[in-house]
């Protein structure tokens, strides 16, 4: 390109020079001299350019080691947008086909947990859209918020918490609303569950998941074995607690996790936790023996033990091809206090003690890249609730249909396909014996989950 320029210039010069032919001989000589000077000038320039081309070609053929990049170029964006937090959005939904009416689904033997539990509605359902924003606040804190926008057009704050970045000696503190650190599944957001729904024990004991409005302190031991100890205090608002009209703490939790590797292919984590919560007038609706719904209420202490374990195996730790994940949790809860019958009506109240337990065991196997299959067994045992109003003959046993001896269980199978890290399409079939009577519910569900925005990083 560059070489053509002098020629073009000479042509142009020729055009302008044409009228000069009619001029005098002196003029012609002067023009000739000028032309000679111009020619020489352009020849010199062409030579210089050719030399530079040769130099550049040589440099391109033998690239020097890349120099350290210069300091980041001045960014013209204003700081208002440069500091935008990481944003990610998960959208999900499902199609459900159930053999029984989902409206009458109850976990037999347990006081309802109040959460949006159960198989959900039939046919197409828009699930929760999870919107997460997170960023470091300053050198000392980071902040994260996850809002769940439900298919019923409500916005719930799932989590909104700060976390410390600079505490010494392995401590991290977290405050605000956050999923409690007990167990394995409680901290896992719904889109990362391995099945469409959480295990029955989470549904019955915590209304799917327990979020604390409070503070958490965690400490990790400076050892090669993973040892994590945590303690939480909260306002107790989450089931099985209630908000109480007094100062101080209404819920505490302590938990510990340990974990490590067994060779290059296997890793594991196990934990135990203890939760102490208080309930005050925790009301629920029961269809007593009168046939009409009455409102009953529990006031007292609720204490829960949780043990959890998870083991993952992948040949040489390469999770892209095959991976096996086995996880299980066991929970035991004792509630001690007073059960009131027909609050606002008869208003009878007397002692109550209920000790129930539940567990699940599940296995998920990625048998081919992008394809996973899973099986889960859930079981609950409500034990034999002791209701003083019934024991002393004040009310008949039929007055309370919910807290009574029962052992619901469920079997679920799932298959999912993950064409990329951001898409999951799943089919799940469950044989659900959670209800007290009326037989088994067969539930078939198809689910989609899509993630857009910032690349998520999942916990173990």
């Amino acid at each position, binding site marked *: 390109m560059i070489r053509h320029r002098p020629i073009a210039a000479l042509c142009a010069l020729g055009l302008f020079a044409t009228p000069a032919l009619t001029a005098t001989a002196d003029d012609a000589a002067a023009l000739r001299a000028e032309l000679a000077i111009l020619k020489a000038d352009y020849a010199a320039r062409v030579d210089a350019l050719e030399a530079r081309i040769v130099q550049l070609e040589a440099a391109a053929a033998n690239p020097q080691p890349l120099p350290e990049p210069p300091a980041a170029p001045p960014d013209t964006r204003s700081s208002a947008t440069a500091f935008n937090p990481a944003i990610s959005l998960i959208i999900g939904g499902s199609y459900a086909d159930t053999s029984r009416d989902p409206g009458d689904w109850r976990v037999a033997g347990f006081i309802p947990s109040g959460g949006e539990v159960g198989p959900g509605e039939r046919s197409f359902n828009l699930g929760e859209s999870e919107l997460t924003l997170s960023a470091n606040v300053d050198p000392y804190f980071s902040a994260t918020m996850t809002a769940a926008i439900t298919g019923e057009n409500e916005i719930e704050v799932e989590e909104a918490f700060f976390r410390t970045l600079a505490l010494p000696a392995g401590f991290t503190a977290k405050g605000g609303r956050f999923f409690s650190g007990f167990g394995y599944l409680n901290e896992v957001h719904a889109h990362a569950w391995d099945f469409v729904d959480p295990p029955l024990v989470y549904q019955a004991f915590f209304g799917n998941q327990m979020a604390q409005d409070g503070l958490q302190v965690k400490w990790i031991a400076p050892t090669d074995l993973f040892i994590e100890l945590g303690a939480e205090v909260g306002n107790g608002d989450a089931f099985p607690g209630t908000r109480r009209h007094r100062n101080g703490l209404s819920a505490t939790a302590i938990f510990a996790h340990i974990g490590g590797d067994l060779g290059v292919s296997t890793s594991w984590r196990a934990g135990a936790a203890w939760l102490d919560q208080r309930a005050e007038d925790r009301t629920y609706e029961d269809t007593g023996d009168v046939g009409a719904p009455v409102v009953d209420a529990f006031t007292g202490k609720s204490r829960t033990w949780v043990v959890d374990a998870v083991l993952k195996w992948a040949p040489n730790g390469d999770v892209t091809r095959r991976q096996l994940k086995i996880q299980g949790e066991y929970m035991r809860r004792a509630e001690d206090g007073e059960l009131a019958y027909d609050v606002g009506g008869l208003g009878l109240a007397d002692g109550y003690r209920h000790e129930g337990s539940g567990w699940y065991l599940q296995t998920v196997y990625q048998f081919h890249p992008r394809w996973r299959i899973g099986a889960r067994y859930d079981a609950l045992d409500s034990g034999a609730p002791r209701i003083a109003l019934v024991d002393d003959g004040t009310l008949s046993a039929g007055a309370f249909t919910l807290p009574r001896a029962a052992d619901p269980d469920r079997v679920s199978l799932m298959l999912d396909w993950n064409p*990329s890290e951001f898409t999951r399409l799943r089919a799940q079939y469950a044989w659900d014996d959670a209800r007290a009577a009326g037989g088994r519910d067969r539930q078939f569900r198809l689910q989609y989950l899509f993630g857009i925005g910032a690349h998520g*990083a999942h916990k173990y």
Partner: protein
Amino acid sequence: MKNALRGVTLLLALLATGYGAPARAAIKVLATTSDWGALATEIGGDKVNVYVATSALQDVHRVDAKPSLVARARTADLVVATGAELEIGWLPVLVRESGNPRIQPGAPGYFEAAAQLKLLDVPTRFDRAMGDIHPQGNPHVQLDPRNIAIVAQALAARLAKIDPSSAATYAQRAADFDARWRAAIARWESRAAPLKGAPIVVMHKDHVYLCHWLGLVEVAAIEPKPGVPPSAGYLGELVAKLTASPPRMILRNAYNDPKAADWLAARIHAPVVLLPFSVGGTPRAKDLFGLFDDTIDRLLALES
């Protein structure tokens, strides 16, 4: 309950003080890949204690944030990562869960190799419809030894900053490594001269730096887009295209499933060359020198 809490508090206090006391020990380095682990050992010698989070048989894009890695992150003085979002699915979790302020991004204890380099394949359009793209550029930087030379100097400077008492050792070891490394680069380059212009097929776009260095020409990738598996239709087109102009070889990394490369090789009659890709990927790739010796030998094996 109160007694239990008091006991736990006491235990915490004991452990925190007992373990927290900084005995003059080796600098603990948590390297995300075996390559950076090997480089940290070259520069740090016995002044550093290196733990490598992954092996050459793993795809570093996809790694579980295992409890054992959180435990290592907790005690690390320095994290040496590739960066450019290669480890985005797991390293942020380790750093966050570690409770270790020394290794938070921005702190001296957080080092990214890619941040020292000029990256190739920087996308001009950010759209996940294009597959698993990395906004900052292609993160598989280790297969150009000139990149390793640059990272080595930056890593030595960083180690000196974290551990000033051994700064002279790091500087001296870095200078020594640099001299040996440059001699090795010259040797590899002269041996690899016949490879210049050789057409190759790759699995994933993770050999761009090797191609850039040796002048290999990547004519096709088995993945139509980064991280996206090939469809039957795409493979059909690939076979047609490569039968017409066959590549000299198909490159496969130690961690790749051999099936796709073998399938293609059988159809287009081109050999598959297994490369270590990272230190530890083959028995000979014991360290960084072995990694390149073995890579060049394997690439040249077809020439003789």
